[in-house]
């Protein structure tokens, strides 16, 4: 894990409000290809911050793809932090801390694997799908739900034979929410990433069917590295930090707070 300066190679709109950014380390203190960095695992994330003083905190963004030392992110503009990222042009600089978190246990994902994505929750899955394809032990299905038009699906074509799409407004794929796309009993393990209501639903569906499930959780973060206890969630093994104990947790361990 390091904190380094990176240069933006590309930062392009792929759908309304959704951008894909590729960055390369430009930190003079880290020699290119020196191999001093920790390898980035699928499901890990980085803390991204522009060099401007505001907004103050870095934002957690999942690793979307890696190519050599270059990192790629897929993100949705939600507020000032992600807007500041969207405003960066090629050649711009940002400070990145990472890789953070545990990531997916790729070797435990074997057999019929279902990836369930809700909206921007699709971001970590291309790198995971590629890793699973390379490991060769999994047959991967993607079930992706969107509010409206889908995005990011082209990243899967090479590694995922079965891609299913739902949209809440019916503008693409099946009209409805992502659970309409699958029966968990058709799979050995389900991996989910998306908004809390979706995660809660997937947790319930898999528990009822007795199918193993892991969730990649979200939380507001300040540090991303375990210093502040700002990102904790309730689990069956106590309060855990999403940033270092997660973001990936076995679904049966996660206790969702009462809806508010």
């Amino acid at each position: 894990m390091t904190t380094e300066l990176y240069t933006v190679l590309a930062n392009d709109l792929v759908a309304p409000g959704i951008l894909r950014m590729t960055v390369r380390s430009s930190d003079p203190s880290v020699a290119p290809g020196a191999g001093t960095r920790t390898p980035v695992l699928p499901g890990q994330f980085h803390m991204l911050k522009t060099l401007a003083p505001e907004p103050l905190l870095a934002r957690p963004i999942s690793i979307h793809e890696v190519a050599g030392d270059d990192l790629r992110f897929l993100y949705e503009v939600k507020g000032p932090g992600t807007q500041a990222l969207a405003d960066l042009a090629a050649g711009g600089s940002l400070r990145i801390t990472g890789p953070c978190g545990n990531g997916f246990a790729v070797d435990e994902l074997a057999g019929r694997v279902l990836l369930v994505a809700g909206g921007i929750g699709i971001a970590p899955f291309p790198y995971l799908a590629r890793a699973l394809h390379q490991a060769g032990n999994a047959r991967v299905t993607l079930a992706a739900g969107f509010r409206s038009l889908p995005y990011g699906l082209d990243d899967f074509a090479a590694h995922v034979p079965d891609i299913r799409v739902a949209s809440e407004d019916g503008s693409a794929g099946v009209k409805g929410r992502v659970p309409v796309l699958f029966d968990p009993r058709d799979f050995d393990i389900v991996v989910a990433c998306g908004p809390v209501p979706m995660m809660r639903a997937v947790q319930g569906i898999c528990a009822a069917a007795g199918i193993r499930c892991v969730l990649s959780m979200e939380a507001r973060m300040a540090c991303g590295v375990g210093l502040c206890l700002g990102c904790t969630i309730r689990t069956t093994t106590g309060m855990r930090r999403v940033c270092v104990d997660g973001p990936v947790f076995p679904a049966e361990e996660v206790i969702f707070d009462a809806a508010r």
Partner: protein
Amino acid sequence: MPPADAAPDLSVNLCGVVLKNPVIAASGTFGMGEEVLPFYHPSVLGGFCTKGLTLRPREGNPGIRLHETRAGLMNSIGLQNPGVRAFVDEILPRIRGLTPVLIANVGGSEIDDYVEAVGIVAAADVDLIELNISCPNVKCGGMAFGMEPATAAAVVRAVRPACGKPLMVKLSPNAHDICAVARACEEAGADALSLVNTFNALAIDVHARRAVFDNVTAGLSGPAILPIAMRMTRDVARAVRVPVVGMGGIETGEDAAAFIMAGATAVQVGTAGLVRPDLLPRIVDELAAFMAREGIHDLAAIRGIV
């Protein structure tokens, strides 16, 4: 007179505890010290404060715990910690070697609990106790003690005999008269004072028409509070004879120098180290570079000059 090109001496003496430099990591923003190991070894700092410890384990507050404001961070962590016994038995042996100066931060909501907790931690291998009488998050808790001189003095007087280590009392900026609280703590036996803890603050989600935090208010830290924290540090440093550790929004070596000019013996850094986990050693380097540039050989030369 040391030769003009001698490396500046950053060491400070904090109520008998010698720190190699005046930069201390602030409680609650440094985990238990182990978390920064991927970035640097904490022994390069003057010392670090543990997360706030309480007699019994605490889960902390439910709901949203963090909210960013302009140039600031609001938090409502609620003193999540494993309790002093688990700290002493399980965590302390792991982290003791990480720093020459380990400061155990102790919080509480009852005087008896403070006394018992401090007794347990002070008997273990820590160098200093930082008594948090100012945490604004625990309902009807820590806040009450630090708000008024009489209640603050009552905790310090009760804790003092149980504390075989130097005792630093961490003041709340929310007190009506922070200098009066400071003097009361000094008279009750504090060996040092640290300030400031977070400012009690409010954020409202106008769309939901409710407070952002379940506890309604939360503690504000970060660059937004620096000028007020610096003023309070100066006021308190002039009001007491014991050493004062200043903090609030420090981001650079020059910020640290400014707190020392305001009268601080040492400083703590919190929020800035969350924003950038590798920052604190840079603050030490920047302070050393500032001293070298300005021809300051010893921090005593600038302490309290403003």
